């Protein structure tokens, strides 16, 4: 620590606040800087990626080879049917992590530091959500990659397939605001995980993810028809396989808009109260 006794100071000359050059679009720029922070953290803790790497692989293998014969007659037919569903389901569960992480992150001093900086208050949250796009891309690539090795084939064209993947990522991004909100409201990270799981489980099973929606009991049909995962999966099947999509793309996008419109402000409000 000998350097500390030097007369030179780390502050050097003070910058008058007025002279600081304020650049445009602070929310976008700062959110992106903070998204980069999330990426560095992800890079440093690759074990946190298990839910988006191993999970889709295990689910595909288990469901295709165990239930494939019983549900669809043969495994290849079931794989073609199931893969868009598994992608939707794992990408939705992938959105749980952000609420869990923010719940623990918030207890650390770093968020106080962010709040004391002249940046928009919401940018740390938006940055964290954007940083998770990487996880959603990984889950998409993993699921399609494993599926391809198991024999899954896209029957449409690359543009449609890409649109299907994009739709899944956008849906996960929207759903992550629910997770963020729960993460802000609940006291422990374990509770965040539990609550989000309780939300996503019925969405995955009371839907067309594993079986055709028509085969589900009639009392469940209303739920199935409103379930956002049903629409997402129907849209993805259409975009991957050319099956009829109906209005599923619009319903999915409407759900995305709705989730963000409701849960982003709620999450922000909870965040402001919490930190």
């Amino acid at each position: 620590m000998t350097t500390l006794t030097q007369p030179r100071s780390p502050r050097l000359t003070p910058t008058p606040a007025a002279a600081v050059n304020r650049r445009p679009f602070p929310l976008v720029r700062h959110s992106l800087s903070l998204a980069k922070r999330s990426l560095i953290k992800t890079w440093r803790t690759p074990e946190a990626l298990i839910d988006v790497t191993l999970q889709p692989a295990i689910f595909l293998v288990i469901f295709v080879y165990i239930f494939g014969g019983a549900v669809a007659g043969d495994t290849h037919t079931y794989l073609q049917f199931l893969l868009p569903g598994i992608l939707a389901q794992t990408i939705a569960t992938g959105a749980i992590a952000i609420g869990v992480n923010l719940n623990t992150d918030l207890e650390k001093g770093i968020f106080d530091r962010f709040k004391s900086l002249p940046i928009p208050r919401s940018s740390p949250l938006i940055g964290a959500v954007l940083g998770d796009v990487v996880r959603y891309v990984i889950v998409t690539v993993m699921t399609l990659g494993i599926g391809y090795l198991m024999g899954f084939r896209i029957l449409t064209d690359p543009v449609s397939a890409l649109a299907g993947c994009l739709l899944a990522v956008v849906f996960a991004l929207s759903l992550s605001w629910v997770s963020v909100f729960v993460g802000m409201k609940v006291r422990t990270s374990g509770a965040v995980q539990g609550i989000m799981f309780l939300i996503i489980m019925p969405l995955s099973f009371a839907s067309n993810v594993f079986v055709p929606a028509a085969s589900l009991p009639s009392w469940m049909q209303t739920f199935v028809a409103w379930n956002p995962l049903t629409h997402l999966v129907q849209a993805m099947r259409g975009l991957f396989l050319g099956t009829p999509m109906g209005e599923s793309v619009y319903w999915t996008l409407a759900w995305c808009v709705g989730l963000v419109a409701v849960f982003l402000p709620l999450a922000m409000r909870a965040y402001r109260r919490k930190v």
Partner: protein
Amino acid sequence: MTQDLVIEAEGLVKHFGETKALQGVDLAVARGTVLGVLGPNGAGKTTAVRILSTLLVPDAGHARIGGCDVVKDAERVRQSIGLTGQYASVDEDLSGRQNLVLFGTLLDLGRAGARTRAAELLEWFDLTAAADRPAKTYSGGMRRRLDLAASLVGRPDVIFLDEPTTGLDPAKREDMWDVVRSLVTDGSTVLLTTQYLEEADALADEITVIDHGRVIAHDTPEGLKRVVGGQTLEVRPSDLARMHDTATILGQVTSGAAAEEIRKGVLAVPVRDDSALTATVSRLASAGIGVTELSLHLPSLDEVFFSLTGRTASEDDRADTTQKEVA
């Protein structure tokens, strides 16, 4: 009071449910000076710092930093402050350099500017060798230095240090004090909270003592020491038979103050100036009295509180320990 006040707070009140963290606190810090805010755990120090640094909105009262209101003009305030403490810290998964670059980017220094500033601060705080390791691998002293560096990225005019040396060993503490002194030399205004009178005395131009969310004293370190008692010289002669002789010598060097045996074999006497220590040493030596212990002490926080309030800080610390610096 026509001083150029950089930090002004009047009647700050903040309650958290039942806990009355602040019950009307006034603070004032002139440009280029250090205010020490002294108080035990739960006194409201951290709450006050969090209000001044725009992290909390007060229930009543108002505060200005550099003339800008911390509530109405929070954005401008955030441009001129740096915050270091138990609470505002760094991202432990990021390296020291990545943290500083991130804060530089968020402060609009630009990519190149942020990198230059980070390198400069790492160098200055002697962290260059550890710059690219995750912050969670840093030692306690390194962490404090990184925390402080992080709050200086934007070259703030006003720096809040919330218990900057709590938990540091004495040598690291002195290093931190040197840093604070050089910041002030450079024109910064510093508000520092502490539990140690010694620290406030070493750094502050003025000291505000708070307890239970109220200011119970405000004075210069000299003025405060006049009230609470200055330094005490403690001596433990190696030969118990020479206790009486030692007491006589202590009486002489402090011009008549009575030495008391405060512990078995340890004599203590209040001293007014630093020369008493050297005088004592030479007188003891010429009298042939060996000592195993010889030290100068400022009153502890407990003693300060006892002098000011008639009760110790720890005695009522606290019926409800859960409220410990809640916010």
